């Protein structure tokens, strides 16, 4: 063998060796095996003492730089869609996808007709961390099964409605018939720590759309710590048995949208729709709505529509809706619990422009004839039963804490300057011949100038009841100091008209 041949041969072999070594440890090679771009880099420790990858985590921002030749592919929707659509990036068992490093904003909107998720019912479970800034949608998003999206906090991450989204269309759907498993329903779909913005651009009017809609996601599915900014349609829409056992939906701050919106302080949409609502629950038995503040201009007929059974609504506050919660407005409602709800007129901050409220809770009577200017509607066979209300409060003078159309009862603040009025408890049971089983602690006349009381209650004292001033007909009064010889222990309010009085019974 000549020297020349030996050098050439050795060069060839060395080159091949280098090639093989480089190839065997290159990212591309690793990617082809088990790693993917964006995997967390972790330290292996001794004895190798090197950096390797963790498939539990994928930083999607690295894919923003994959397309150096096509800037149009650098938007968050396209990148996430690529991550989900490309085999080998997300392990079958799922991963955290960190998109917080992807640039967003008006200069980098989602590409036309592109959602972060391809339509599939077999995507792996993922948790997606969204970046701060405004994410301009181009089409509605449908969250797949076992998918959670988490923003950088209220107003930090804002998902902005596309200007062309059709009226009544949801911006985000929690599952769908084509993305949920074959059983028909999704689980574990979550949305938290972000803003849903119903105003397409900073200078435009809000759109009549739905912020988030759940018709297909059940256990483990929720919305929490979410602000809804100027959604003119329904901020959160939970409908049908497909949403059964979802929730709880916690810590929500929906503000109603409309037209004639102003962007300088105070910011609000002065022309709002009567059909706008913060939350709608229709024929779904959920784990409830726990904690919300619903604000509007005073025009929307109701903040929350509760047309379903077996839900809890607690720790809520309303400003600027006619009815805070309308129960049974469009469908029957039974077995619901509503706790600690307040209504008040807006005010207090320089940005506050919320309107007044009339009824904190309005119990509809489907058999009653309603006009078209009311949250309640008339429909055959409907009813509201087994409803427990506790600590329902109106902080607006002369307005109503509870308006019960089933028993024609109104619990009204007795004076315009009152700091508030409400009921410690108001339980509406079920209809019996001639009435309803019912228990209330409310004990105020209907108005400051009236001598009629709206609801019978049970009074207690260690003395006899007043002999004048009226009382709620049918009420009971117990005197713990009643004597054996006298008829001064139990009293019943009788009479009616303008001069009901306590009559000794036993």
């Amino acid at each position, binding site marked *: 063998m000549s020297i*020349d041949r030996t050098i*050439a041969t050795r060069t*060839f072999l060395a080159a091949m060796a280098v*090639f093989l070594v480089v*190839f065997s440890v*290159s990212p*591309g090679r690793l*990617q082809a095996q088990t790693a993917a*771009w*964006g*995997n*967390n880099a972790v330290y292996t420790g001794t004895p190798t003492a090197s*950096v390797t990858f963790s498939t539990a985590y*994928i*930083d999607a921002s*690295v894919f923003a*730089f*994959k397309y*150096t030749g096509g800037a149009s592919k650098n938007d968050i929707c396209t990148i996430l869609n690529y991550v989900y659509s490309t085999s080998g990036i997300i392990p079958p068992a799922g991963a955290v996808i*960190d998109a*917080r490093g992807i640039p967003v904003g008006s200069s980098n909107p989602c590409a036309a007709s592109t959602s972060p998720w391809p339509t599939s019912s077999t995507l792996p479970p993922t948790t997606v961390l969204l*970046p*701060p*800034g405004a994410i301009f949608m181009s089409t509605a998003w449908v969250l797949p099964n076992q998918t959670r999206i988490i*923003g950088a*906090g209220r107003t*930090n991450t804002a998902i902005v409605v596309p200007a062309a989204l059709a009226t009544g269309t949801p911006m985000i759907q929690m599952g769908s018939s084509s993305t949920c498993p074959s059983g028909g329903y999704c689980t574990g779909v979550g949305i938290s720590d972000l803003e849903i913005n119903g105003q397409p651009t900073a200078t435009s009017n809000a759109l009549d759309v739905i912020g988030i809609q759940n018709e297909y996601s059940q256990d483990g599915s929720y919305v929490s*710590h979410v602000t809804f900014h100027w959604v003119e349609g329904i901020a959160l829409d939970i409908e049908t048995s497909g949403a059964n056992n979802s929730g709880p939906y916690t810590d929500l*701050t929906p503000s109603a949208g409309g037209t004639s919106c102003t962007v300088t302080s105070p910011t609000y949409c002065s022309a709002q729709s009567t059909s706008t609502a913060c939350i709608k629950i229709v024929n779904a038995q959920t784990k409830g709505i726990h*904690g919300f*503040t619903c604000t509007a201009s005073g025009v929307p007929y109701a903040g929350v529509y509760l047309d379903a059974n077996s839900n809890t609504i*607690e720790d809520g*506050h309303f400003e600027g809706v006619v009815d805070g919660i309308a129960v049974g407005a469009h469908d029957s409602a039974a077995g619901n619990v509503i706790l*600690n709800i*307040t209504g008040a007129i807006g005010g207090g901050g*320089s940005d506050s422009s919320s309107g007044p409220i009339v009824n904190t809770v309005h119990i509809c009577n489907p058999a009653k004839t309603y006009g078209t200017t009311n949250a309640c509607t008339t429909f055959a066979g409907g009813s509201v039963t087994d409803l427990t209300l*506790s*600590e329902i409060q109106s902080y607006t003078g002369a307005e109503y804490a509870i308006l019960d159309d089933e028993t024609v009862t109104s619990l009204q603040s007795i004076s315009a300057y009152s*700091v*508030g009025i409400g*009921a*410690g408890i108001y339980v509406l049971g079920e209809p019996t011949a001639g009435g309803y089983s019912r228990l209330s602690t*409310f*004990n105020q006349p209907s108005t400051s100038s009236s001598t009629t009381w709206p609801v019978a209650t049970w*009074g*207690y*004292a*260690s*003395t006899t009841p*007043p002999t004048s*001033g009226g009382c709620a007909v049918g009420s009971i*009064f117990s*005197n*713990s*100091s*009643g*004597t054996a010889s006298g008829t001064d*222990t139990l009293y019943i309010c009788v009479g009616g008209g303008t001069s009901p009085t306590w009559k000794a*019974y*036993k």
Partner: protein
Amino acid sequence: MTAKAVLLRFLFFATAMILLGWISTSPTRALAQGCSPVAGNNLVYGNCSTQSSFGSQSYIDVSSATTSATGDLCARIASVLATSGLKAGTVVDARGIVPPTPLSCSSDPFIIGVNGSGQPIFAPPSVVLLPSGTITTSSSWVVPDETQLIGEGPGITTLQAASGFADPFVYAGTNGTANPAVIHMGAPNTSATVTQGIVFAVRILHLTVDGNRQTVSSTYIDGIDNNNAEEQSYVDDVTIQNVLANGLYLSADPDSTGDGAADHSGPYTNIVFQQTSGLPKSATNCVNITANVEPRGIHGISCLGDSTSAATYAILLNGNSTTIEDARIDGFNTGIYVGSTGDPTQANLLFNITGTDTVGSVTNLINIDNTGTGSSPINLAISAVSLTTSAGTPCTIDDHTTSTCVTNSSVGMYLLGQPVSTSNITYGYSRFTTSPNFATWIVGSTSASITGKSCTANGSIFSSTTGTGGSMWACVAGAWK
């Protein structure tokens, strides 16, 4: 040159070209132009041309980003928070800072400067992760708008007031008072030095706040105070200890009603208040909710005093429309004091409240006041309360509006409604309780069980579901009639 030599040279160059071509077109090469990590960024797989990893902009590790810094923990956190262009919501991870870097703070990590008017400049929204260990601070911390402060867990991360603790936000204004506190949720506004206004989404999670029995101008300091943080603000999974004033103080801005309050904040969940040394003072409160404030509630709290039960009240409830649920009181003389200031507190809901005597006895679990100058509490719903105590004459519910001391160790329901009154004279209250010791409603199938029997609560009603022997009876002077 032989044909074989030509072939070998061809193989060499061909191999080299393949190798170079592969390297130049690989993902490694393609990523090279997009890499711009800064110190402390999380490294993720996805190569740059000269680096093995790619920097994630969503995260900054304080220990790496401030390696040249000489300051304490707070100074190093503040230096990161002051970074120009810091994205809102960035995770600022200080968990990697360990001794010998002192886990002490001479300043508030969330104050990153002073403006031309001398007012503090607060950090932009972020998520700050604190390290394990005890962090001593000489100054109160203000957690600003849309900021989360997260420890590694109660007892694992402790924020402790240092000796000589100072709080620049103490202020007595026309609308209220800002007390000295280890942590403020938002900055209390003063008419001149601080004008931050209302804040939202201020969150404190997974740590211990230790007041270390410190004072400011002879006033004992609070643990966590909220004068300004409203919707989406809360405290979760936090232990508050060695605080001799208020563990958790929920009030209004001291300067103006327009600058916010603790309204609609919460619920405050999974809180433990305890003393690890020394005796609490009579004015020590686990929670203090002041008049006219409307937080969403306290859901899950243990208020632990000491064996002397020297602390008078665990929870002062003078606000409105608040739920307190799943609470345990131990070692306080009184558990929940409703309407202590005489303000017309209303529309509060208390349920699953337990008094125990493991630490010290509880005399009254729930005290409803009637001694103030304003209206008495109304519309108070109490459900599922129980008291186990060694106190001599305890009241599970002590209702001064109706002069009722419910001594049953547990009570299913006690509803206090509104006054039965005329001409401004209150005769009684609408009320319902399931305690058989007070006027209640008993339902049975037949009156035979009560006929000729004595009864304990005058004014009680017995309804017979069969009507045998009479349908309705009343307890009159100790006998059923």
